[in-house]
């Protein structure tokens, strides 16, 4: 059964079960289901039990609980976790144990969350299906022959299979929202800069956005108020005050709320069943008195092209640090320093890392920089201006997340462009740096989950949470569980 963090804490306080029993149960579920699902790359059962015992001690002494005391978490394996192996889903970092932690993980831990392990991801978060992991693909629990989406596929699967109370993720082009959609769980990609990027292996620094998956929007709100806020370790983190999102879940009146449907998101290649379920959600909001408006974001079709210029460019720079000298795997039998770099990177980097570094290196090389990088950065401005204009007409946008439900493992893995195009409805949000909430809104005829996306204006997370929460109060798609 899916419980919210508050329900779980209330169970602990009323002694329905102890934190140790709760954590033991999670540990056992992971041992049982992970060999098939491959959601976790590393588990920390003993550490989790120790932390649970501390919660039980606190309960015995009637001390007040912290916001996340007793909540268990799976942490995407690109978040550094002090003294816990962090692979980034790559063989390059197979034995890397960091000596400091990422800010988001540290804040969750300091609020009481108990880590159960590190979740699978496409190598360095490069991908949309978790098939690019150096440790094998994660399987979708609704049908294990299908991908769970990605790159945060391990976290989404851990969420839907109830292997942790919540899970962390990162979203550079859809890597939280798309797996949330394909697995049937809730996920938030906040405004760029709301959550600190410190201690997360960098992909594309002007796009990367840490966030969370949870059972409900209510939990996403609670978790985001813990993770968000300025961090002196990240010079692009937002200094704006962080609202208590979980107290604002009823703050938006659906009556009169202006919801925009961008027409570019409802045409080809959108799968008809997905479209139908999204429109049923639109009908729900209409029945609550929301004003539905057709709007246009004419440059949306350029999102993928902008993304696959700017992101590989930033990747080629960020990945330069993996030289094998300071951390990670390396080739020892080399002739000189250049040979050492080139052999190490050639041997240990997964194909998608090499592909993206090569694309980025080419794009930034002399003679091509202006034609591609500058041009794409200019079109980025056009995309932002279109969103700004639309947000003067409506309060939020409602769109699909993925053009189709989950697809078979292997179907797109030999065609990188086909894989890139699966992000067609999610990338523009990252290009603009806007916040977006992905929540389940139905199932197709094969009983595969379908999700919708609510996009808000900059730093308008409280509005998204409130609208999403009210939708979940009236529906139960987010509570459905696959048979394991």
């Amino acid at each position: 059964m899916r419980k919210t963090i508050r329900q779980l804490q209330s169970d602990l306080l009323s002694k329905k079960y102890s934190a140790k029993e709760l954590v033991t149960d999670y540990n056992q579920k992971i041992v049982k289901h992970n060999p098939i699902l491959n959601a976790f790359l590393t588990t920390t059962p003993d550490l989790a039990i120790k932390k649970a015992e501390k919660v039980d001690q606190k309960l015995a002494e009637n001390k007040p609980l912290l916001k996340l005391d007793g909540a268990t978490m799976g942490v995407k394996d690109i978040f550094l976790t002090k003294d816990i192996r962090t692979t980034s889903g790559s063989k390059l970092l197979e034995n890397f144990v960091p000596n400091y932690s990422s800010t988001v993980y540290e804040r969750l831990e300091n609020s009481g969350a108990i880590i159960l392990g590190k979740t699978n991801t496409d190598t360095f978060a490069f991908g949309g299906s978790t098939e690019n992991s150096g440790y094998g693909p994660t399987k979708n629990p609704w049908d294990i022959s299908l991908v769970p989406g990605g790159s945060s596929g391990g976290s989404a699967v851990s969420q839907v299979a109830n292997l942790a109370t919540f899970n962390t993720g990162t979203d550079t082009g859809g890597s939280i929202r798309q797996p949330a959609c394909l697995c049937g769980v809730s996920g938030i990609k906040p405004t760029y800069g709301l959550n600190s990027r410190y201690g997360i292996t960098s992909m594309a620094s002007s796009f990367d956005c840490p966030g969370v998956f949870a059972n409900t929007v209510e939990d996403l709100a609670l978790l985001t108020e813990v993770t968000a806020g300025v961090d002196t370790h990240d010079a692009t983190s937002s200094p704006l005050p962080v609202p208590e999102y979980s107290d604002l879940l009823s703050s938006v009146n659906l009556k009169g709320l202006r919801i925009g449907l961008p027409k570019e998101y409802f045409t080809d290649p959108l799968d008809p069943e997905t479209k139908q379920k999204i429109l049923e959600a639109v009908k729900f909001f209409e029945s609550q008195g929301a004003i539905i408006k057709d709007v246009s974001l004419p440059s949306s079709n350029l999102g993928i092209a902008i993304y696959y210029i700017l992101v590989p460019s930033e990747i080629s720079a960020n990945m330069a640090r993996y030289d094998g000298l300071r951390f990670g795997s390396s080739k020892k039998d080399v002739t000189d320093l250049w040979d050492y770099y080139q052999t190490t990177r050639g041997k240990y980097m997964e194909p998608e890392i090499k592909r993206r570094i090569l694309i980025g290196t080419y794009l930034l090389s002399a003679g091509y920089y202006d034609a591609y990088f500058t041009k794409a950065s200019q079109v980025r401005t056009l995309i932002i201006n279109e969103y700004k204009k639309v947000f003067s007409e409506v309060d939020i946008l409602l769109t699909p997340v993925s053009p189709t439900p989950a697809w078979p493992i292997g179907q797109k893995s030999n065609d990188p462009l086909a894989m890139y195009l699966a992000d067609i409805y999610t990338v523009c949000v990252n290009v603009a740096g806007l916040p977006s909430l992905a929540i389940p809104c139905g199932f197709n005829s094969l009983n595969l989950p379908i999700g919708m996306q609510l996009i808000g204006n900059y730093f308008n997370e409280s509005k998204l949470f409130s609208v999403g929460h009210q939708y979940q109060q009236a529906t139960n798609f987010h509570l459905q569980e696959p048979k394991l």
Partner: protein
Amino acid sequence: MNIKKISQLANIKLTPEEEKTYSTQIENIFNYLKVLETVDTKGVSPTFSTTNLTNQTRQDIPKPGLVLDGYIIAPKTIHKE
């Protein structure tokens, strides 16, 4: 695209098979990227930061740094007689 030159710039040693696969795949991706050529961007300034939150630096007060207990052992890469 000169894949040998690019892989050298990127410091990645590729096998001949990899060179072939990546050349084809990357050419294919580049054909798709051409869609931007048709967009009129005259006079549009480029965006490098979406929220304009750059250089949110902390006050320059000394704080303890990370402590490494031990040394970093790197392989011998300079071979001089």
